């Protein structure tokens, strides 16, 4: 035990571990807050679709040998989010079908590009790291760290300031619209924020596991809490705790970061489900 603590202390003194923890906590908080809205509005699949799109963009960035990949991935994913929201209104292709089309299309294209123009000698390794995150959170460039922090703080500020309207739109879009809230604008905002958070969270857990970061804390919190505020706050705290524990465990036991964080989230879900059941009885 003491040996672990000494090792942990040693790791924590490295600047890259410190920035990984800061960025991880912020991303975890943002994704959990957004997740509550996404889950309640039955938009979970949009998160999944966008993360796959982001993988495609990431592959393009890798092929182009960009050092700050987020500068390309972010705008592309935001654009896709806006497009998806638009096509949701178009009756020719239903919302979930267009999300599915875009996500598998981007995945295939991304993998194809990586194989046609290999950025390094280890294509399989590259693909695996963008899908499952591996160590990306520990190898962020300085620009990416700053970008992550700035964007997370912006997202958090938006959540706090718009909480009231976000609740109204999430619970009942028709009523909110009749009360003069610009529901279309808020949907757009939610789509853009989703895209931003997904791109940020990909650094932590990789594009295949991003959805887990969005939905697990929200679903766990809903098992126990009965008010929107309770669910939101609990999801945020739970997500941060799971991420910190997962990050530290992955450093200590040399396991993949993303998978460890998500495993912690899954474990927390079962614990919360149990608490919820006990509370009911």
């Amino acid at each position, binding site marked *: 035990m003491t040996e672990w603590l000494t090792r942990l202390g040693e790791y924590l003194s490295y600047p890259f571990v410190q920035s990984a923890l800061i960025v991880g906590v912020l991303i975890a908080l943002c994704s959990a807050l957004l997740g509550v809205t996404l889950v*309640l*509005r*039955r938009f979970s699949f949009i998160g999944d679709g966008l993360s796959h799109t982001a993988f495609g963009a990431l592959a393009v960035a890798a092929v182009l040998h960009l050092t700050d990949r987020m500068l390309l991935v972010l705008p592309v994913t935001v654009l896709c989010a806006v497009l998806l929201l638009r096509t949701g209104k178009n009756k020719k292709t239903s919302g979930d079908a267009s999300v599915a089309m875009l996500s598998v299309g981007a995945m295939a294209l991304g993998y194809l590009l990586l194989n046609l123009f290999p950025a390094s000698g280890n294509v399989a390794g590259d693909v695996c790291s963008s899908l499952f995150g591996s160590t990306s959170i520990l190898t962020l460039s300085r620009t990416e760290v700053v970008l992550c922090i700035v964007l997370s703080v912006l997202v958090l500020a938006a959540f*706090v*300031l*718009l*909480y*009231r*309207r976000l*609740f*109204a739109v*999430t*619970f*009942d879009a*028709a*009523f*909110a*619209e*009749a*009360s*003069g*809230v610009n529901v279309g604008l808020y949907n757009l905002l939610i789509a853009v924020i989703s895209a931003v958070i997904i791109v940020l969270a990909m650094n932590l857990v990789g594009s295949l596991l991003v959805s887990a970061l969005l939905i697990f804390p929200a679903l766990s919190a*809903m098992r126990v*809490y*009965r*008010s*929107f*505020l*309770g*669910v939101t706050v609990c999801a945020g705290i739970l997500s941060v705790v799971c991420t910190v524990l997962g990050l530290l465990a992955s450093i200590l036991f040399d396991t993949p970061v993303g998978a460890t964080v998500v495993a912690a989230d899954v474990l927390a879900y079962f614990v919360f489900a149990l608490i919820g059941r006990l509370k009911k009885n």
Partner: protein
Amino acid sequence: MAQIVCEDLALGYEGKTVLSHLTFSVEAGDYLCIVGENGSGKTTLMKTLLGLRRPLSGAVRFGDGVKKNEIGYLPQQTAVQRDFPASVREIVLSGCVGRCRTPFYGKKERAVAEEQIERLGLAPLRDRCYRELSGGQQQRVLLARALCATQKLLLLDEPVAGLDPKMTEEMYAIVEELNRRHGITVLMITHDLSAARRYATHVLHIGGEIFFGTREEYLARGKEGDDRD
């Protein structure tokens, strides 16, 4: 002047007219039931009254102190709401969303919400979770929320859909009290013709032949129709 005046309204979407030559007005304290078959344009009319949709032609005018966005709206329940984790208090308070300009609800909004909670007998349920309530209780919560938005005019979209007979009676009694005792104007979209005959002061029938008149006129017209059959 009337609270709502609709003049020669034509409604529809994508260039398709669903409803035309619709003229009616609503005075303060009226209880108007809007009846008509499915697809006759009830929902479109409602959205137009709420200002969510523009009429193809004609105009909706508000008067007598009622402003646009000052309609207390009770929409039909959605699947999302049935298992929504929110307390009764949170939902009622969200009725103030249109009137509050600051990021958070202030004392004034909380007082308004509390008043509506008391008025609809929801005080004991204040901290309960919405999804754990019965269908009738949920409708009462949504009605309290609508009353946070206005004290003058309620627009109810099939308020008794999915309620059992006992809850249905309860809901009608509450709406009647709000109308008769508190003088709140009620516009109710309903399939329930018996309710229209019992509670309404005015009836608007759309789809096929448009009829607008008092309850008595509607009843007389119904008799004529029966005689003809």
